[in-house]
């Protein structure tokens, strides 16, 4: 598959007073192919959001490379990226469309804004583009003159998607796009996203807590824990046979209606380790991991291949 996004030993360390550094994203490497949907999962505080903000260039990395179809983006500063031609190539759908839409913009303004800025359209052309986007995302045109508070959750989600795809991005980052929606609306939005991907040939980076949704939508899954990717591979394989103990705990935590499927589940005790100046020799999961052998405290496990497309960072996987 043709590689669209190539992330190479990307790191972000925030200074937190003294000489101490918070390792939010720690030497992360992965790729996203053209037309591929990659899921990013992990608990709050694991660095998902920082990683996303590095990729869409809202934050400057401490080190490492971000290449989009061969173009180096890591060298451009976040401050100047907003006016850069590459801005249109990576777009984002935010978590809660209710919070991320400007309350003083109508739906039409919200969709038109990025087109005006990045594609330099105006007047009747802009109007036509906005209407076409409303049609594509299934937003009735008569709602275009409404403000966010006059729209339902599902309609706001459609506006959020329309404005993100308005500038024809190659990579769309979706940050929990359906977390605020009821299940019946969620289904409609997930189907819309799948259909748009087919029509427009975009790649998706799909960030979510809801593993059942990740399983539905994603080709490949990245599992992140405290700044590191601890496991990655095809979605089907990860869900059927998780190798890393943290991935196992994540999958064990999916609620099960059927009591027979609850047998042998893994529950995590303890609290996560501090991300501030973590010991480079200790596995990040040490202390919460049911395994926790002496080797885990003396040698950081690195990502290694355990199958044609699978990698795990655990001594015992």
């Amino acid at each position, binding site marked *: 598959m043709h590689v669209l996004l190539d992330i190479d030993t990307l790191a972000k360390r925030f200074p937190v007073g003294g000489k101490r550094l918070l390792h939010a994203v720690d030497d992360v490497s992965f790729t996203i192919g053209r037309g591929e949907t990659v899921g990013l999962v992990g*608990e709050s505080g694991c660095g998902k959001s920082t990683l996303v903000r590095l990729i869409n260039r809202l934050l400057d990395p401490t080190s490492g490379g971000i290449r989009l179809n061969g173009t180096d983006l890591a060298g451009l500063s976040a401050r100047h990226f907003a006016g850069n031609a590459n801005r249109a190539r990576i777009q984002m759908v935010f978590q809660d469309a209710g919070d991320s839409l400007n309350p003083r913009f109508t739906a039409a303004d919200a969709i038109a804004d990025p087109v005006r800025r990045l594609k330099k359209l105006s007047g009747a052309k802009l109007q036509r583009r906005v209407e076409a986007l409303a049609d594509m995302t299934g937003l009735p045109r008569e709602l275009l003159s409404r403000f966010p508070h006059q729209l339902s959750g599902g309609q706001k989600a459609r506006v959020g998607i329309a404005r993100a795809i308005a500038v024809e991005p190659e990579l769309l980052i979706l940050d929990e796009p359906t977390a605020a929606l*009821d*299940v019946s609306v969620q*289904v409609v939005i997930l189907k819309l996203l799948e259909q748009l991907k087919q029509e427009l040939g975009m790649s998706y980076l799909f960030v979510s807590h809801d593993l059942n949704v990740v399983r539905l939508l994603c080709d490949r899954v990245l599992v992140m824990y405290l700044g590191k990717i601890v496991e990655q591979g095809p979605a089907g394989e990860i869900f059927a046979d998780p190798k890393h103990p943290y991935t196992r705990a994540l999958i064990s935590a999916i*609620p*099960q*209606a*059927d009591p027979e499927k609850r047998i042998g589940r893994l529950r995590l005790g303890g609290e996560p380790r501090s991300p501030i100046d973590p010991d480079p020799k200790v596995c990040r999961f040490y202390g919460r991991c049911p395994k926790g052998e002496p080797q885990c405290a003396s040698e950081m496990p690195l990502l290694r291949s355990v199958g044609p497309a699978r990698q795990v960072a655990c001594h015992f996987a």
Partner: protein
Amino acid sequence: MTAVPALAVEDLSVEFRTRSGTVKVLERVGFQVDKGETIALVGESGSGKSVTAFAVMGILDPAGRVTSGRAMFGGSDLLALSEAELAEQRGRELSMIFQNPRTALNPIRKVGQQIADVLVRHAGATRPDAPKAAIEMLKKVRIPDPERRAEAYPFELSGGMCQRIMIAIALACRPALLIADEPTTGLDVTTQAVIMDLIGELAREAGMATIFITHDLALAAEYCDRIVVMHAGHIVEAAPGRALFAGPRHPYSAKLLAATPGETATLDALASIPGSLPDLRRRDLPACRYSGRCERRIDDCVRPLPHREVGERHMVACWNPL
């Protein structure tokens, strides 16, 4: 097993007066929770789950009014109690865990003190003893290093920890009835599992009746004895979780299940629910509020809703059930 009802809600109707008319939020809602039993109230936003809980707790918004019904709890009707009598019951006999622990906790009071406050107010603990008892509660909800954490403010703790503090406060006086309103929204799945296990364990231990409000059907099925499905202010079906998953009888429950992503479903197999909730301000609301969206509608559907027993503890409010 003889079931003893801890709470029996009968015929509960609630209206909200708004500028654009009266909203009939709940209509003749009835259910019961036995001692030691956990039930789930599930439904989409606007179905009336939280309003039901607020009405029982006596903490409805001032615009809301109970127009009919009873909530029998320990020999008295909660809906008929005075505010002072209710205040005595709340915290001691009735307890609630709110959706967002960070906003429900007092941000400028140490968490240990917040637990101690409840113990002093409702459990007859004395000020000097209360801090120790608070630490005991922190141990019970498995907060590591409880002595130190008791001195922390909510902002210093993670979301999962704050939720455990909420649980500690709610359970401090060993209530007979606990209402948990989406206690794990916004928490990670791994934390959610731990918190739900904890509530379940403490409930079993104390023989507490629990009402768990959620929109996550699988979560409800895993942790609750029975599931009560609500739609637009009506209870449409109530059944043990397994029975509901195996064979939902109300068309709305079936649609809700078909829309929920599960282990085996593909995106194509998932179906959304056609139509939307009826406008609850309408004067001519149909007897069955789902009938406007329903594919199984028959002539009988204009008659008052039936409550049919279709199995062991399985009720469906439908003239043409599946």
